[in-house]
């Protein structure tokens, strides 16, 4: 029987029989359903995923008229820094607007965390003002809450990653609570200033990377920002499919944050005032891309079904079914994108 070209989650090539492909799709959705305690994809949806994954074309696409918008994270890091193209941030924005035809873009500092931006806020504001004069597309300012930066040696607070292995659980929890308060102040300060500079919105990126306190700081900062500046637009992109319980006891609106999967994260983000939510589903490098795509679609569909705000799942390297490799193959990226839009009912990527 003819084998279907596919890939593993690490990007390496893989050839599957029809039965193997169907089996991977089914076990992928079942894994998500089991972990997230959500419904699996239907037979019809799995059949459509089979068609997408088994299509003989290298690149697949949605039908004309079904396109969705793209938002960005780490926008100005990718072209000039990671790509090594010698242009400044304004040049990067203009290249994305006029050459790559991006729907939106995001400006960020090379450190890409809220805390260090505080010290260079005047320069960041000036850059944003200049960019806003020249750009037609919406341009957001983005950074990560990155609670780790508040711990020694980078900050004043004892490092919970060191306290926990020593068994100092209470001290580690108190350190996270303290960092959370500091982060809220910094995020508010930076977001308010960049809003005043004309930014089209603030992108909270990789939220929850330092665990549940990181997520709490972001939710409380959003709440504070929306109260002070109701018209500010906020996008929130997550760090992982569930919130890592570094603290374990933190709550927002009486809901414990640790262990929350995407659809539960979304509910709290909505309550806080987030305008666009970006769920993240981690790609498993030792499972196939179809397995990962089915799994991602199951989580994203669970978000789309209950969401009142637009959903922009992360579909980049290592997330959303895209392989964990810095040169993610276009066959896999296009399949993941189509699947997230058609089956996950994503509003954007």
């Amino acid at each position, binding site marked *: 029987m003819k084998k279907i070209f596919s890939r593993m989650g690490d990007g390496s090539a893989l050839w599957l029989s029809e039965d193997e492909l169907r089996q991977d799709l089914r076990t992928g959705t079942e894994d998500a359903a089991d972990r997230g305690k959500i419904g699996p994809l239907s037979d019809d949806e799995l059949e459509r995923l089979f068609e997408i994954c088994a299509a003989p074309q290298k690149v697949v696409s949605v039908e004309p008229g079904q396109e969705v918008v793209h938002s960005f994270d780490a926008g100005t890091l990718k072209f000039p820094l990671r790509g090594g193209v010698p242009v400044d941030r304004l040049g990067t924005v203009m290249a994305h607007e006029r050459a790559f035809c991006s729907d939106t873009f995001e400006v960020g500092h090379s450190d890409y965390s809220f805390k260090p931006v505080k010290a260079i806020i005047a320069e960041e504001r000036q850059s944003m003002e200049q960019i*806003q004069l020249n750009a*037609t597309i919406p341009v957001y300012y983005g950074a990560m809450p990155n609670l780790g930066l508040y711990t020694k040696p980078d900050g004043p607070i004892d490092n919970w990653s060191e306290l926990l292995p020593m068994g100092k659980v209470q001290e580690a929890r108190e350190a996270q609570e303290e960092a959370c308060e500091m982060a809220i102040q910094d995020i508010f300060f930076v977001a308010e200033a960049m809003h005043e500079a004309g930014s089209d919105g603030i992108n909270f990126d990789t939220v929850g990377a330092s665990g549940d306190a990181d997520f709490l700081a972001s939710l409380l900062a959003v709440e504070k920002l929306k109260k002070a500046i109701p018209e500010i637009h906020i996008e929130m992109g997550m760090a992982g499919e569930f919130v890592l319980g570094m603290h374990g006891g933190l709550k927002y609106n009486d809901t414990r944050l640790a262990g929350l999967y995407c659809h539960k994260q979304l509910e709290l983000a909505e309550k806080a005032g987030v305008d666009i939510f970006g769920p993240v589903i981690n790609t498993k490098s030792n499972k196939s891309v179809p397995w990962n795509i089915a799994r991602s679609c199951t989580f994203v569909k669970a978000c789309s079904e209950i969401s009142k705000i637009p959903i922009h799942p992360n579909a980049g390297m290592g997330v959303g079914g895209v392989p964990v490799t810095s040169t993610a193959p276009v066959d896999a990226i296009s399949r993941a994108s189509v699947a997230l839009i058609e089956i996950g009912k994503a509003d954007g990527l």
Partner: protein
Amino acid sequence: MGGVRTAGDLVARVMASKALRVNEAKKYVADKLGISVFDLCDSQVMREVREDLNIGHVLARPGGAIGIEAKFRIAKLLDIEINSVKRFKERSECSL
């Protein structure tokens, strides 16, 4: 969707400023432009629409609006507030 080559930036703006899901945002923009939802991503249709309305296009032309000039028109056309436009008006004491 194709950014300023199509209507990608416009749909993205409405999606964020009105917190609309994608299909609602597309319909809103299509109604404002007087075209079908299908045409929003047709670069041939949108070139003409964008040039006629002078709201910025992928091709740089003499007199063609870009940046803040294009956004002044987009805000009015879509009946949305664009933060940079609002601030430009405030700082320049412009009453447009």
